[in-house]
């Protein structure tokens, strides 16, 4: 990890025009709903918005046109998602399909899978969830036990996933299963793309501490899945999942998902801040600016086909810390009642409650630091 330099963020085409077009589109198409949905907005589920966004060409942008995509450069997509997040647009419905399931199907999927799933993803109509965690496989993901046995008719799946965000609203789950009987740890795992309306699947809500129904437990009871549901190579599930997690960690959502709070703080402060508020705004801005540089550099490296596992983890670690710190520091300085109904108070309350999850989802803080330590040559 020595000799760090920023990887040049150099998207093709007219990026200023891309931003301007999207901002104009958002001005007339972003729903003016509750301000709280603008915070943590990649969890805000709005299928109507996703469909409109897909029709406007902003989902599945990097997919080839023959699968309904737009053949755009990954860094053009990066610019689009940072704009959407900065605006607090409700991108939750299509988020996972656009960010990781689509690209993974393109990379490892069969032609049949590509034709079947990618056009719906690009239209903003087909949503996906991530089936990794199980009751006894959290940080220790290699402990997954959900099994898939190959039979003449297809795969027979038995087991349970948990904490599956959006399973109740999604069409498919990319599921990590153990396909080789008696295999252990990260050997013998495969990925299946399972349609969630298949018989034998039960999805039960888990209400989170904010009172929201975002994640679920999902039970598989002798579920029969076609042979064609296997994604990529049998037994290579671990390798594929690791690649998928790389896509997940360094995006702008790791520092921009609470941007609505910073906007509200600045607006509530006005143009002539007292010294304490000016200091807070200055410090938050410096951190955000720095994170943006790191995130863009990592995206550029990914786009160039490199594997910036460690850099991606640095973005997640610092981004999570920033987003957890921000509401706490705002609360420490702004006089605001817990139950006040102004924008700033509502955002503050929502983010104070949501932020403990930031350093859990997508790899816990300790796991992420472990990856960085490995990159430093300590493990």
């Amino acid at each position, binding site marked *: *990890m*020595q000799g*760090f*330099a*920023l990887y040049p*963020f150099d*998207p093709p085409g007219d*990026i200023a025009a891309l*931003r301007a077009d999207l901002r104009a589109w958002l001005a007339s198409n972003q729903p003016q709903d509750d301000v709280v949905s603008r915070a943590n907005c990649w969890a805000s589920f709005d299928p109507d918005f996703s469909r409109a966004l897909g029709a406007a060409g902003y989902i599945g942008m990097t997919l080839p046109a023959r699968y309904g995509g737009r053949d755009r450069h990954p860094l053009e997509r990066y*610019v689009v998602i940072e704009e959407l997040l*900065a605006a607090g647009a409700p991108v939750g419905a299509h988020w996972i399909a656009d960010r990781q399931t689509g690209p993974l199907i393109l990379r490892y999927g069969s032609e049949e899978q590509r034709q079947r799933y990618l056009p719906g993803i690009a239209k903003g109509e087909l949503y996906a969830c991530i089936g990794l965690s199980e009751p006894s496989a959290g940080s220790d993901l290699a402990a997954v036990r959900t099994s898939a046995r190959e039979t003449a008719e297809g795969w027979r799946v038995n087991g349970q996933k948990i904490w599956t965000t959006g399973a109740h609203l999604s069409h498919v789950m990319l599921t990590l299963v153990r396909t080789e009987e008696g295999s252990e740890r990260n050997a013998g795992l495969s990925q299946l793309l399972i349609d969630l309306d298949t018989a034998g699947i039960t999805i039960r809500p888990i209400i989170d501490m904010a009172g929201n129904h975002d994640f679920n437990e999902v039970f598989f009871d002798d579920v029969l899945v076609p042979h064609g549901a296997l994604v990529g190579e049998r037994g290579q599930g671990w390798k594929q999942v690791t690649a998928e997690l790389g896509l997940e960690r360094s995006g702008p959502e790791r520092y921009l998902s609470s*941007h609505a709070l*910073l*906007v*509200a*703080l*600045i*607006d509530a*402060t*006005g*143009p*002539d*801040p007292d*010294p304490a*508020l*000016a*200091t*807070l*705004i*200055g*410090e938050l*801005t*410096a*951190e955000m*600016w*720095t*994170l*943006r*540089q*790191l995130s*863009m*550099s990592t995206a550029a490296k990914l786009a160039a086909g490199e594997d910036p596992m460690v*850099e991606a983890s*640095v973005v997640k*670690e*610092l981004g999570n810390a920033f987003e957890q710190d921000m509401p706490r520091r705002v609360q420490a300085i702004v006089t605001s009642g817990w139950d006040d109904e102004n924008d700033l108070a509502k955002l503050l309350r929502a983010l104070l409650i949501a932020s403990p999850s930031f350093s859990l989802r997508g790899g816990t803080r*300790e796991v*992420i*630091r*472990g990856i*960085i*330590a490995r*990159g*430093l*040559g*300590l*493990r």
Partner: protein
Amino acid sequence: MSAARDMLCDTARAVFAEAVTAGIAPVEEAGFGLLLVPEEENGFGGDWGDVNAVLQIAGVVVPDLPVAELIAGEAYQPAATVSLMAGAMGQALTLSIDHVNTRQQFGRPLGKFQAVQQSLAVMACEVRAVEAAAAALALRLDAVGLDASAADFEIAAAKLRANRAVGVVTSIAHQVHGAIGFTEEYHLHRVTVPLMRWRGAHGNDAFWAARLGRQVAALGGHGLWEAMTARGA
């Protein structure tokens, strides 16, 4: 990095090594004062990316010599200090990693203990952040033809971010070194003490935070994002 910059860095390493005992004279004689002077004026014709690379080396090898002042004027000293700090922090990290990989306690290298690994991961994040800030500031300065006032936002953000990293970086570096790092003989203090000094030089945290905060408050909530994206990428 370009081949020209690689060569420049090789020269800097050699000249600074000599300057450790000889003082600033060899740095002057090698022409580092001409780094930013255009080629038409018989200078080196370098950009801030070059300055950033050279000062990162200076921050490690000759932290007490006025190399930054030799290369650039007063208006650039906050930016120059960010580069010195990035270099010193990178060195503090390198020294720490080397130390925990060699020093054994309880029958194994310190680096095999998870508590030590997690501390160094935290430190590495801070170091990467400051290196990124220094590099992004260089891009901005070069994009605006070295007009420091047009890079005021980036100078403030980068110096503030570097300042804020000092506490974490110096404390973890010293913690994982144990007593040896607290000695005159061992070279860790050759980067950590300058880091402590640079935090307060050319604007401490309060100075830059207040300045940046006022600038952002004047932009308004949405104006911040618009300004940030208009200024780069």
